[in-house]
């Protein structure tokens, strides 16, 4: 009986909240500011206007968001890596079809991730999506080679230090313009004609840095979850 009361109340409250928002908010607002958008493109040199905003005007927000990602990686590693590893847990079932197809797919996925990060200022994509796609490429690689092999090959390359160094480089790139007399968080590299690969001030650089950071961070999280998957 109590359960029915609680369920009804929950449904009623949620619908009330939802209804308040729907009935007060006009259905489909129009509007994009056409002259603003052209101005954004010429000021930053990027034709992907979304990149121009989140790596140009709102770089301060993006910086904190990279920090949120870093904190997530720190948290997952701190809380998972101190437990005994799951050598006793059931092994992940290996399927030959999966292994064979992963062997073909993972180079393609890695290249796709690289493309998304590099060309994020010209077409949809950007650092975050490129990094995530590349991380799923790494996951496919794990499916084809095995998780410990990939871990051994990657951890020898100083990947941990790189993971912490990358946000520091991003912060330095943000602060560096101050030394040259420009306002902080603006860009130092020159702005070329909009639409060329190298003409995008510092957006290309930031995309690559963020893509690398997301790739390494996601790999750390994935490895922690695979290695310490625990048992019920």
């Amino acid at each position, binding site marked *: 009986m109590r359960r029915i009361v609680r369920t009804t109340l929950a449904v009623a409250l*949620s619908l009330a909240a939802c209804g308040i928002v729907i009935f007060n*908010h006009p259905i*489909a607002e129009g*509007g994009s500011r056409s002259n603003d*958008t052209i101005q954004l493109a010429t000021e930053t040199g990027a034709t992907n206007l979304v990149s121009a905003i*989140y790596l140009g005007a709102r770089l301060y927000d993006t910086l904190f968001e990279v920090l*949120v990602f870093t904190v997530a990686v720190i948290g997952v590693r701190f809380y998972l890596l101190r437990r005994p590893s799951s050598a006793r847990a059931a092994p992940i079932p290996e399927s030959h079809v999966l292994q064979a197809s992963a062997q073909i797919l993972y180079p393609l996925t890695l290249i796709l991730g690289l493309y998304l990060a590099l060309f994020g200022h010209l077409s949809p994509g950007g650092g975050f999506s490129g990094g995530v796609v590349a991380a799923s490429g790494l996951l496919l690689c794990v499916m084809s080679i095995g998780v410990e092999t990939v871990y051994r090959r990657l951890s020898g390359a100083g990947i941990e230090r790189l993971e912490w160094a990358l946000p520091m480089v991003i912060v330095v790139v943000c602060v560096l313009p101050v030394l040259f007399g420009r306002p902080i968080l603006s860009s130092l590299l020159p702005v070329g004609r909009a639409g060329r690969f190298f003409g995008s001030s510092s957006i290309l650089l930031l995309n690559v840095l963020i893509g690398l950071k997301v790739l390494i961070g996601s790999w750390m999280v994935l490895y922690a979850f695979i290695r310490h998957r625990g048992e019920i």
Partner: protein
Amino acid sequence: MGWLSGTTVAMVLFAVGTTVLIVRKDLVIKLLALGLVNSSGILFLISIRFQPQMEAPILPAKVGSAIADPFPQALVLSAIVINFAILALSLVFVMLLVERYHSTDCERIEHAVETEKAMLGRRDRTVNPSEGDTREETR
């Protein structure tokens, strides 16, 4: 079909998410509902300035058509990363709790935690009694 816009769908999903978050007892399902609530917020954010005949905000645009507002889409990128972080960390904590109590039932865990709290001296057990270095934790 004027009512079937992104904002309406987003709010319906929000209502479903909050209902499931309250009603269901399983912690993993609560987390899924939390993800649904967060995603509905994101859907709401990108559909406030969008009409079906608008183009993507990539120049050069088709002549004579309006471009969707890129500003909310930039905000959504941050929101997605934040949701990923929340999901990952809450999954880790659920994993630690499940390992300790061997159940994903929210009520059982709450009851067990409150019983432990009421024990005299509040010397509750750590998650991994076998780990030696939890003795020297910072305070």
